[in-house]
Structure formats: C-alpha cells, structure tokens
C-alpha cells in the first residue's frame, strides 16, 4: 500500500511539473497545491510509520547497543581495576619476596658467620687440646724412657755389685754376715 501511495505522489508531482512548465515564471518553482497536499500527506504517513514502528526499534537497537558498550566499558574498567589490583598485589608480593629474600640472605649470612665462628672456635680448642696432649705425651714418654733408663742402669749396677759381692763371699765373709745378722737381730726390740 505504501508503494502505491508513493507512486501516486510521484505521478501527481509530474503532473504538477508539467502544468508549471506550461504556466512559466515563479510558478515554475512552486508546487501545485494538490501536489503539495499529497506530498504532505505522504510525508505525514511516512513520518507516522517511521515514528510508530521504525523509530522505537531503532531506539531499542541503539539503547541495546549503548548498554552493551556501557557494559563493555564497565567491564573494561572493572578489568582495569582488577588488573591494577593484581598489579598492586603482585608488586606488593614482589616487594615482600624481596624483603623476605633479603632477610633469608641476612639470616643465612648471620648463621654462616656463627657456624664459621663456632667451627673456628672448636678447631682452635681441638688444636690446643691436641697440642697439649701431644706435649703431655712427649713429657710422659720422656719421663718413662728416663725412668726405664734409670731402672736399667740401677739393675745393671746392682747386678754387677751383687756379682762382685757374691764372688768375694768366702767362708770368713759368710760367717761375718751371719754374725752381723745376729747382731742386727739382737738390736731389734
């Protein structure tokens, strides 16, 4: 029906145009009243149709589009905020990790220094002990050797003396020793 109406308007316009050409002057520029009315009616009809059907759909589409964009923008903003939060958290974690790493390194260094000092102290004490023990052993060994030597010399001297005495023990000497024994025994109270 809209097509038929448009066709009629065009035919009317052409007819008007033909009439105008025939009258000449300013009349050439002005539409014929019937054409004007028909065009106006067609315009109103088209306007109403558009107003009634196309404009709401268009508005709805635009609104949906606008909402979608707005949602996307909000989502993007939200994502941005989340990213910023994550970045902040990450930076905080990195900073914490750095601090923790630094603390671990410091603790390890302190611990290492303490272990080193302890090992050095122990090694020094052990060295002193070994040194002292070695010295004591040397002294003990020296004393032992000296005592052995002294005993050997004494034994040798006594053996020699005993042999000399025994070899010179004749009967007179034996009797003298018996008398000496009796005298010593007589002196015992």
């Amino acid at each position, binding site marked *: 029906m809209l097509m038929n109406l448009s066709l009629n308007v065009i035919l009317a316009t052409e007819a008007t145009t033909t009439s105008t050409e025939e009258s000449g002057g300013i009349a050439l520029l002005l539409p014929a009243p019937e054409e004007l009315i028909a065009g106006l009616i067609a315009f109103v009809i088209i306007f109403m149709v558009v107003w009634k059907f196309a404009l709401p759909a268009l508005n709805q589409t635009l609104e949906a589009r606008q909402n979608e964009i707005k949602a996307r923008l909000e989502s993007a903003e939200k994502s941005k905020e989340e990213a910023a939060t994550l970045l902040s958290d990450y930076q905080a974690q990195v900073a914490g990790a750095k601090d923790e790493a630094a603390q671990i390194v410091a603790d390890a260094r302190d611990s290492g220094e303490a272990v080193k000092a302890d090992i050095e102290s122990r090694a020094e004490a052990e060295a002193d002990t070994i040194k002292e023990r070695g010295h004591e052993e040397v002294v003990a060994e020296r004393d032992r050797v000296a005592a052995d030597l*002294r*005993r050997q010399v*004494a*034994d040798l001297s*006594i053996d020699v*003396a*005993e042999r000399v*005495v*025994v070899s010179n*023990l004749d*009967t007179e*000497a*034996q*009797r003298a*020793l*018996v*008398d*000496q*024994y*009796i*005298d*010593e*025994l*007589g002196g*015992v*109270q």
Partner: protein
Amino acid sequence: MENETAQASYVDGYASGLLGIATVEGEGIVDEIYSAALAINGHAELIDTLADSRVPTERKQGIIDELLAARASKVTVAAITFLIAAGQARHLDEIAKRLAYLAAEAEGEVVAEVRAPLELDADQIDRLTAALSKATGLRVQVKVIVDPSVIGGVVTKVGDTVLDGSVQNRFTELREQWG
C-alpha cells in the same frame, strides 16, 4: 681337699710317733731327723728315686745308709728308712718340721727354721737363739738348715714370719727401691 686332710693327719701321726721315739732316745734325735729330712728334701732327683715304687725297698735303704750312716745315729737312719718305706718320701720335710714343732711345743718353745749357706757354730746358734727370743718374745728353738742357695747371711722363719737377712734379699730390696 679330702686327700690333703688325710695327708695332714698322716704327717701328724708320723711326727707324733717319731717324737715318742726321740723322747726315749734323747733330744738330739729330733735335730738329726730334722736336718737329714730337709737335706734329702733339697735334692729333687733323690726324692724322685726314693718315692719311686718301682725301686726296691732294699735299694732305697742302701741309699739312705750310704748318705746318713756316717753322719747320724742308727735311730735316725732307721726312722728315715721307715718313713721312705712307708711311702712318705715326698713328705719328709713336712713330717720333720711337724716333729720339730711338736718337740718345741712340748718344751714350751717355738721352732725357728734358720737357713744359712754354712754350718753355724754353737756360739752363733746360742746368740741367734737369744736374739730371736728377744725379737719375738717367745722361747725359740733354732733348727739350722744348710742351704747353699742362700747367698750371704741368714734367712729365719718363725711361724709365718720370715726374717730375711741374706745378701740376695738386700740386693732385691735395693732393686725395688731403685725401680
């Protein structure tokens, strides 16, 4: 343990029997038996022969006669021969010491076993007896044993007490002091 007890009983029995004979024959018999027994005991090979059951008794008697006839009375020779024939060759010294102990005890004395490298004369024995009596506070009866292993001086044993005055012991003490 039981055998030791029985042997101690035998030793005591033989010593008591010999003491009875010595009492009749005179005190010198105890000294002779003591000296002869300890002299024989000092020779291990002689003891082995006298203790050997395969050696005839007559042979053993001949050995004793040969050793003691010129130095001891017939009673002493007979007593030693009897003990060997009775199988007591290895216990001669124990029996002799027990005999001396019983004889001394009978007279209220204790035996002092004196080992010397040579015979002591009567004066030395008297002085030694007096010295030991003074030192121990007991009446002492000296029994001298000639022991060549004692080098210089005298070793006396009274009961469990040993008074070692040998040169050997003095050198031993010297070694201990220097050791």
